[in-house]
């Protein structure tokens, strides 16, 4: 039984993720249909799940659906509908909807009860007709499945409501999910941010809480939410922006903070969290804690699994800043004009950028090298986009920059985009024309030799534009991946677990 609850717990939490995801979806696409979509996927779980589930579940769900249609009669329809109506929008948790769902469940349970009862009563008859018994059994199974699904979605409807209370408490997050803004970019950012937080911290914490049968519903601010707030600033993007120079802006008086200096090996170590028993390294402490559970029951206690919270007195601690271990570096504490680094990540990036080999080479231009892989990725996004070229050879990534340059310097002109040469060069009649003209007119010895120009033009244009196209696709891919991350991860989990279980039962 405990096992079942645990598994149910998994279902619940993952389902909650689905809910959350759907919520975001309906927010980010300002589409009148999205709420419908949301609604359908929400309550008619059997219809929604098959899309993402393994085939055994799919067939089962279809079966179930049929059963629902044939057996469960009108009495259930209104209930279902009222549930659908009230649960939308899902951010507002409606106790009425919950109640109606529960009563639906109750009804359903009664029904299964009576079904099983009837099977018991008619056991004698069934012995002569085994096929009928099988049918009844199937019906009971289907009903149970339906109940489970309904239970999951009912319980799931609670999660965003908790989420919502948190959001309303946190101004930054509230702004992030403010349904008023239409800006797609922001939505993208939101969607990109979300999976990580959901995947890494929130999910684990939820899981943990459920595992420990903690009464998480009563907690107004359960740990996962504070986690979200915390993890956001340590996002990789932010790190790059809050680069090395943060302390400069701070102007902390020397001595008002503690200076820590990590060793080179520490800085360059790929993992920062190590298992004290087996020595396995992890990038995240949460993962380490999950790992620790395997080492014995003492690591499974709530206290051991809980995120090491900041001690109440932690704020009183003096501000900590970091020094670069490279002697002579401005970031080294021995330096006369020492400028401390703000976080460990700043130290890492600074050390790699300034004192390490640049081992990552851009695969497009083969010229630019980087020591921080994120820098390479940033560069690759823009590499090959310098298509705006001046007659002096300087290239620019933006047209207005080129034109500003041309305006400044006497005699400079924008170079012609190469695709045009290509277009005119590849024309059918043009080659003939060139020959014709070359035949009787010497005046063509103008600056740009005709044939030479063509060849060069085509080659160059290839060099110019293929990376750009590539880049475009890359960007698309990336975006697509982002979307998949979001959808895949929370969902991939549910059907498999569910499918297996229902297969077992």
């Amino acid at each position, binding site marked *: 039984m405990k096992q079942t609850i645990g598994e149910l717990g998994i279902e619940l939490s993952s389902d909650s993720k689905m809910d959350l995801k759907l919520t975001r979806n309906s927010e980010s696409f300002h589409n009148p249909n999205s709420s419908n979509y949301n609604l359908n996927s929400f309550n008619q779980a059997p219809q929604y799940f098959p899309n993402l589930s393994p085939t055994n579940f799919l067939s089962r769900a279809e079966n179930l659906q049929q059963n629902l249609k044939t057996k469960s009669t009108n009495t259930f329809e209104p209930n279902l509908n009222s549930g659908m109506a009230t649960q939308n929008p899902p951010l507002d948790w409606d106790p009425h909807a919950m109640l109606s769902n529960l009563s639906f469940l109750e009804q359903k349970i009664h029904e299964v009860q009576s079904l099983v009862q009837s099977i018991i009563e008619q056991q004698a008859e069934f012995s002569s007709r085994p096929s009928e018994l099988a049918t009844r059994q199937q019906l009971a199974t289907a009903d149970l499945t339906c109940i489970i699904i309904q239970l999951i979605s009912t319980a799931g409807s609670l999660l965003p409501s908790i989420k919502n209370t948190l959001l309303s408490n946190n101004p930054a997050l509230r702004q992030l999910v403010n349904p008023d803004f239409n800006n797609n970019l922001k939505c993208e950012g939101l969607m990109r941010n979300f999976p990580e937080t959901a995947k890494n911290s929130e999910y684990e914490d939820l899981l943990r809480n459920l595992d420990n049968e903690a009464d998480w519903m009563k907690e107004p601010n359960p740990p996962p939410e504070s986690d979200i707030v915390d993890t956001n600033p340590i996002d990789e993007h932010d790190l790059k922006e809050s680069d090395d120079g943060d302390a400069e802006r701070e102007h902390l008086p020397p001595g008002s903070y503690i200076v820590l200096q990590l060793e080179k090996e520490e800085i360059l170590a790929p993992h920062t969290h190590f298992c004290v028993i087996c020595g396995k390294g992890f990038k995240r402490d949460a993962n380490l804690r999950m790992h620790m559970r395997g080492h014995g029951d003492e690591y499974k206690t709530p206290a051991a699994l809980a995120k090491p919270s900041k001690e109440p007195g932690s704020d009183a601690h003096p501000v900590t800043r970091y020094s670069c271990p490279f002697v002579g570096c401005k970031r080294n504490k021995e330096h006369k004009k020492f400028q401390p680094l703000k976080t460990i990540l700043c130290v890492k990036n600074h050390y790699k950028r300034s004192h390490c080999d640049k081992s990552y080479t851009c695969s497009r231009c083969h010229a630019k090298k980087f020591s921080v892989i994120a820098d390479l990725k940033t560069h690759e996004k823009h590499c090959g986009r310098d298509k705006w070229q001046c007659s002096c050879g300087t290239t620019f990534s933006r*047209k*207005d920059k080129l*034109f500003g340059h*041309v*305006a400044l310097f006497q*005699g*400079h*002109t*924008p*170079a*012609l*985009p190469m695709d*045009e*040469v290509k277009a*005119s060069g590849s*024309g*059918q*009649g*043009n080659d003939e*024309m*060139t020959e*014709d*003209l070359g035949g*009787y*007119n010497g*005046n*063509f010895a*103008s600056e740009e030799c*005709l044939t030479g120009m063509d060849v060069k033009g085509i080659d160059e244009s290839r060099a110019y534009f293929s990376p750009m196209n590539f880049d475009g696709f890359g960007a698309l891919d990336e975006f697509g991946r982002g979307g998949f991350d979001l959808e895949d991860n929370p969902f991939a989990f549910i059907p498999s677990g569910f499918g297996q279980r229902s297969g077992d039962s």
Partner: protein
Amino acid sequence: MCDITTVLSVDLLAQVLDWLHDSRDLKSCRLVSRAFLQAERMHRRAIRPLRLGPLPVLLRRYVGSLQSLDLSSCPSLDDSALSLSIPCPNNLRSVSLSRATGVTWRGLEVLVSVCPKIEAIDISHCVGFGDREAAAVAKACWLKELRIDKCLNVTDVGLAKVAVGCSRLEKLGIKWCFEISDIGIDLLVKKCLELRELDISYLKVGNESLRSIASLPKLEDLALVGCEYLDDEGLYFLSNGNCSLQSIDVSRCENVTSVGLTTLAEGQQRLRKINAGNCSPVLTSTFVSKLCTLGDTLIILKLDKLQLSASALEIVGKNCRNLFEIGLSKCNGVNDEGISWLVEGCTHLSTIDLTCCLLVTDKSLLSIAACCRGVKCLWLESCVLISEKGLDQIATCCTDLKEIDLTDCNVNDNALKCLSRCSELLVLKIGLCSGVSDIGLSFIGTNCSKLLELDLYRCTAITDDGLAAISNGCKRLKKLNLCYCNQISDTGLSHLQLEELSDLELRGMVRITSSGITAMAVGCRSLTQLDLKRCYSIDDAGMWALAQYTENLRQLTISYCTVTGLGLCHILGSLRCLQDVKMVHLSWVSIEGFELALRASCGKLKKVKLLGKLQDVLSPELLQTLQARGCRIRWVNKPLVFKG
């Protein structure tokens, strides 16, 4: 025989020739004697050849004096022909290659390199031209005037090339170069400080461009027609700029309102021409009242399709005393009272456009006749309330009247009788006036011998006799429109013996046949445009006649005629100047016929209109070759419907 040149020396003769503008007069002059021919040769500064064939000879003859060469009407002009035809040492200052779609940047480079003194180039309407062509032109560093209108592929880069290469530019037209943006305009303004005239009509540029343009110190003339992204803010920049604008055209700028115009009028006190037609429909009185500050300088004011009350026109009349031209076409609210206020003040008005001012009656015409005796052009299309009474007064008082448009005004023969007193009349449009008959035309024919243009569109009462009267009286006619005058037959056409007629529209004249066309072609040798659409009875014989007699034919419409493949091949093959053919629904022509005919004319044609179904059956090579030679094909999908 005494040589006239002993008394009339060549330079004196050249001075006489300065006063001759008509090509026919010059031609007669050339024929006088060898000396006259020599004088004419030395005097000639510009030529506009119709065919390429004689061009090298012509250019060799005029090479010393020739300054301006217009190749816009030459068919089959391509790079090789262009580089061949221009002699190497020359004094050419101006070359027009408008619509020379067969030329590419290579040809332009040759042109620029062999004409070191070139100052003006026109490559407008070469729709395929782009940055490379612009770059070729930009090598002419002495260029003062450049037109690249509708070179659709020219982008900011091409414009930048021109701006950097031709920094002495004074006049630039980049109308319809949709790819050009604010950035390009900004660079242009920084590099070409000599710009005096700039046409950026229909560009998708914003107010930032006007902010840049406003800094041009010498800008006088700015055309911004149909720039939908400009609004009042842009005009505000202009009004505070360095330039002292003399002429501004903001017509069809949807987002320009009277507020912007008011600030412009406040800031630019030397404005002489304002075209604010089709802006935003409501014109507040503030703008009109601001016009009074421009007062004496304003000479041209166009307010088409704006809301104008009588009092607004009164303000204009009281303040803009020197107004020379006013456009009030489609202005709601323009009535007799307003017109009388206007003309009372603006007595120098020469051109008055009252097209579609539905409230205008004879009273307006009476006040115009009373106040503006010098009126030359009067456009009254769809002013249905006017009658011969008003026109009589106009004809009596405004003896200098040269153009009048009475399309759809329901005028009758009496009105024409009155108008025929205007012996200076050059343009007369009486389309859709079914009341006009042969009697009316006979008055015109007798008295208006200078007439150049006559529009008789759907004057259904006209018969052969009326046409005879016109062709006997108006021998200088250049344009004649007889569309849907379906009472006219071959007899009428045979009267058309107009040597100067260049433009003839005979659309929907169902009674004419090939014999009529033959008679007309013999009489009107200088025809360049002919429309025979829906002349169902015209067959191959007509085509033969046209091919034989009207050598200069450039545009031809023969849709719905009963021409066969043979006739089509013959006419397309033999007419050397033909550039634009519309041949939709030639049901008697087979696919092979079209194929052969198009092959026969390949290289000359710049525009072809064909039935869409042919797109799949004509050979792809043919279509490719046509397009490679600069021919644009328009595919039409219309059902074949015969209309009487």
